[in-house]
């Protein structure tokens, strides 16, 4: 590991020396805002990316689940409001969706997934959704798609501060404070957020209440940028998350349990712009720790703790105008242990080569990645994308890729059960996207087909449970989005909508997987007049099977939930926004997981102050 990082350093120093001679002023350095996750811009042209920011974030509840549930094609299986939340992106499993923090994959080393209720969106400037395979760029798990939590580093903005406060039903509090300063050469911002709730809502049409469902979480993030000179920028990203959740009951006499998370992420990044070369060195250190209390009344808990050190170097070279070649090397060393996992180390290094070229209306991008590790046999991953623009209004994309999900720490090292002979899950997929853009309307539709092999499942073998490579699943379907914008004098109308049709079948039985709805749709209608905004938001989730034989007796009904909100901007520069929301206005009685009832009508009020 150490040798590898030294090696990386060696390369970058020699490179920076030989490229010093070129003095082209590269445009990127003059940019006022620097993005951390460049692949979203550079090598994601032929796949669909949606970015959510600003008002969409401030109008959303703080959990990533709620933001994405109402604004994307991703389906969420939530064990009651705020409880464990697993995404299904294009009909895949929770472990087949990557969450990337400033470009770094942060899925748990233990179970390979991110619980979307343990991410507070207030600490990020933008949340992007990238549909489809992305293992070449983002590593293990990017099969259904990936979610990107990004912080921007801004220069030349002076002081920028904001306060966000929201209070609502069930004693739910959501606070965010952000303070930033930037000059021409230096940038710093710090954000603190806290979210908490008693979460003791009454079930609709029932005399029962959500018991043992309280939660809180708090996060601190700090980001710094320093332009050393015209060619070099140093950036530092830091993030700390601390949260505790009780797990709500189905039956009032259950044993109370709770779960604690403590995660930290730090990354140092050095960008060098040397003429046709752009070099980026990243060093990241991530820690994750959980504690599960099987009985809250006792002090006993089980835990898992992992520390990950990542060194990543990438160098891109603009061969000629509109053609770019990029090479990436990274080394990841993880050391983890837990109540049932002896201290285990694993090191994975990988090499990628990416190429992109634009020829008039035609663009193609191709990428290869190979991992080297002694933990499992790693396949050669690839991605190939083609784009053609028919004039200014119509674009067609075709993309095919091979992606994977590697076995997790639990899969490999669980005491007495871990199976070190596991192969990664692999997915071969193709998709075709159509994009129409006009002045007031844009529309996109993507059809996809995904064949996923060697899915890892825990099954008892004799008296012992072991993970094995077993299921073979195919998913296919359609993802679509529609955006309308229209304004007439001081009246502004916008409508955003998504619809997804998803089939996800076990190849052996030809039956739909449980908890994958065939239909999901969202829409947000917004009307703004002068300083006032009124918006109406809907979510439709089709019925899901809860048994593998698709037994109709155990279908979970479809649900349709609507929220309404009003906000008003005050102050000379509209620096104050006051808002109120009524959620689930029709008091729909719905469950996203069987017997995990969600709240009925509820209210919240918020204030946003920028200064």
């Amino acid at each position, binding site marked *: 590991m150490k040798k590898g990082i030294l090696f990386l350093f060696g390369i970058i120093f020699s490179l920076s020396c030989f490229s010093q001679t070129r003095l082209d002023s590269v445009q990127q350095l003059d940019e006022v805002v620097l993005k951390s996750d460049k692949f979203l811009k550079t090598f994601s042209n032929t796949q669909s990316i949606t970015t959510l920011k600003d008002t969409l974030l401030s109008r959303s509840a703080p959990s990533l689940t709620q933001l994405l549930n109402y604004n994307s094609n991703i389906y969420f299986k939530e064990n009651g409001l705020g409880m464990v939340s697993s995404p299904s992106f294009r009909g895949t499993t929770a472990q087949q969706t990557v969450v990337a923090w400033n470009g770094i994959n942060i899925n748990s080393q233990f179970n390979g997934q991110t619980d979307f209720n343990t991410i507070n969106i207030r600490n990020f400037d933008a949340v992007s959704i990238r549909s489809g395979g992305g293992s070449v760029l983002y590593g293990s798990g990017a099969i259904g798609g990936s979610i990107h939590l990004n912080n921007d580093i801004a220069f030349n903005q002076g002081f920028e501060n904001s306060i966000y406060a929201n209070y609502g039903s069930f004693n739910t509090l959501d606070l965010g404070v952000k303070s930033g300063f930037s000059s021409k050469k230096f940038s710093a911002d710090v954000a603190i957020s806290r979210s908490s709730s008693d979460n003791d809502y009454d079930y609709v049409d029932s005399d029962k209440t959500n018991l043992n469902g309280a939660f809180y979480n708090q996060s601190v993030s700090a980001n710094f940028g320093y332009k050393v000179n015209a060619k070099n920028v140093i950036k530092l990203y830091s993030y700390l998350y601390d949260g505790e959740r009780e797990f709500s009951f189905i039956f*009032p006499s*259950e044993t109370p349990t709770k779960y604690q998370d403590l995660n930290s992420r730090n990354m140092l990044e050095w960008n060098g712009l040397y003429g046709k070369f752009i070099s980026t060195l990243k060093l990241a250190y991530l820690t994750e720790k959980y504690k599960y209390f099987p009985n809250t009344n006792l002090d006993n808990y089980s835990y898992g703790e992992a520390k990950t050190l990542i060194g990543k170097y990438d160098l891109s070279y603009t061969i000629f105008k509109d053609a770019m070649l990029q090479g990436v090397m990274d080394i990841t060393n993880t050391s983890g242990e837990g109540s049932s996992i002896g201290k285990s180390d694993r090191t994975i290094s990988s090499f990628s080569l990416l190429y992109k070229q634009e020829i008039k209306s035609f663009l193609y991008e191709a990428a290869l990645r190979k991992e080297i590790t002694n933990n499992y046999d790693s396949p050669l991953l690839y991605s190939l994308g083609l784009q053609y623009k028919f004039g200014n209004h119509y674009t067609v994309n075709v993309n095919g890729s091979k992606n994977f999900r590697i076995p997790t720490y639990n899969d490999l090292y669980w005491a007495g059960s871990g199976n070190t002979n596991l192969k990664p899950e692999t997915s071969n997929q193709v998709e075709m996207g159509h994009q129409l853009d006009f002045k007031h309307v844009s529309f996109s539709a993507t059809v996809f087909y995904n064949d996923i092999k060697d899915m890892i499942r825990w099954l*008892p*073998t004799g008296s012992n449970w072991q993970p094995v490579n077993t299921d073979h699943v195919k998913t296919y379907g359609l993802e679509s989005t529609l955006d309308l914008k229209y304004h007439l004098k001081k009246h502004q109308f916008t409508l955003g909508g998504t619809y997804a049709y998803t089939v996800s079948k076990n190849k052996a039985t030809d039956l739909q997987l449980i908890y994958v709805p065939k239909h999901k749709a969202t829409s947000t209608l917004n009307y703004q007049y002068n300083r006032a905004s009124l918006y109406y938001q809907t979510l439709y989730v089709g019925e899901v099977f*809860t*048994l593998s034989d698709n037994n109709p007796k155990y279908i979970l009904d479809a649900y349709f939930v609507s929220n309404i909100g009003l906000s008003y901007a005050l102050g000379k520069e509209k620096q104050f926004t006051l808002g109120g929301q009524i959620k689930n206005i029709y008091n729909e009685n719905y469950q996203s997981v069987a017997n995990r009832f969600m709240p009925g009508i509820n209210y919240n009020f918020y204030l946003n102050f920028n200064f």
Partner: protein
Amino acid sequence: MKKQFKFLAFTLLMGLLITSCSNDDDSSGGSTNLGEYDNGYFVLNEGNANPATASVTFVGDDGIVVEDVFRLVNPTAEEIGSYLQDIFFDDTRAFIVSGSANQVTVVNRYSFEYIATINTNFSAPRYGTVENGKAYVTNSAEWNTGTDDFLTIIDLNDYSTSTMIVGDYSEKITSDDDYVYISNGYYGSGNALTILNTNTQELTSIDLGAGNSPNSIIEEDDDLYVLSYNNASNGKIFKINTATNAIENTIDLPASLVDAKNLVIEDDTFYFTVDASVYSASMSSTTISDTALLTYNSTSTYGVMWGFNVEDDKIFISDGGDFDSNSNVYEYSLNGTLLNTITVGVGPNSFHFN
């Protein structure tokens, strides 16, 4: 092996996973019909994380199958819980144990009409028995230790409860003549029996010897029969005299029969299972053959022989299936001929004869 269960608890975000089955053998055998569900047997379907899949199936002697008897009879009653673990009876009542809900639901054993829900003083309840007007239910509490295992004692007049610490892995339970017998074995941990004198509340422990972890306990004609598993040695059937608490006899199982479970005694014959096979031996024999009486066909990866029993010249086997869909019960004759295949609920784990 407890750790695998902790892992499951973690991944399923549920406190429990139930395995094994009960041999609650309390047939009334009468010819009079005491209610709709007299003259037949109940299959307990433990269900999965979705409580709607936890159910009781009734199979009548006439072959008529009634699904989800509890909700059929009691559509508006309190739910029976999930991860159903055991049913035990007294003369008129049936008691349904839910491991995750920490509750016991009381119904009329013949009409299945709801009587009460008992939900105090439980922590991961396992199995129950009735003796002297009281019900005794074993509780595992924390999975990774036996020291906190306890009994919940239910007064069957008013359903009030109290607890008594056993302090050793407490699983299967049976009773007779004022005594309650508990097998202190849990997936290879624990190697004793505990005897409770219900008159004096006195507990006595019988050591089965290192590594001999009991998984079945039966009281028959004032003797106790215990089947044990030993991961370093042969499985054994112990015979214990209940008057002296002395181990009177020990029969070694052949070394080829690893991880034997589900001891049942019917008509002076031992029956037990290893994987998908059923073995039998006369109670008077001193050795046991490793030739199977029958082997049933299972495609279940992890629910093979999830439930087993022998009653009135029939062998009953339930297959766990995938625990995500309805599964099957197989009825065999005593010489191993398949008589019937019956579709029941999710994760059928035990048979209870009415």
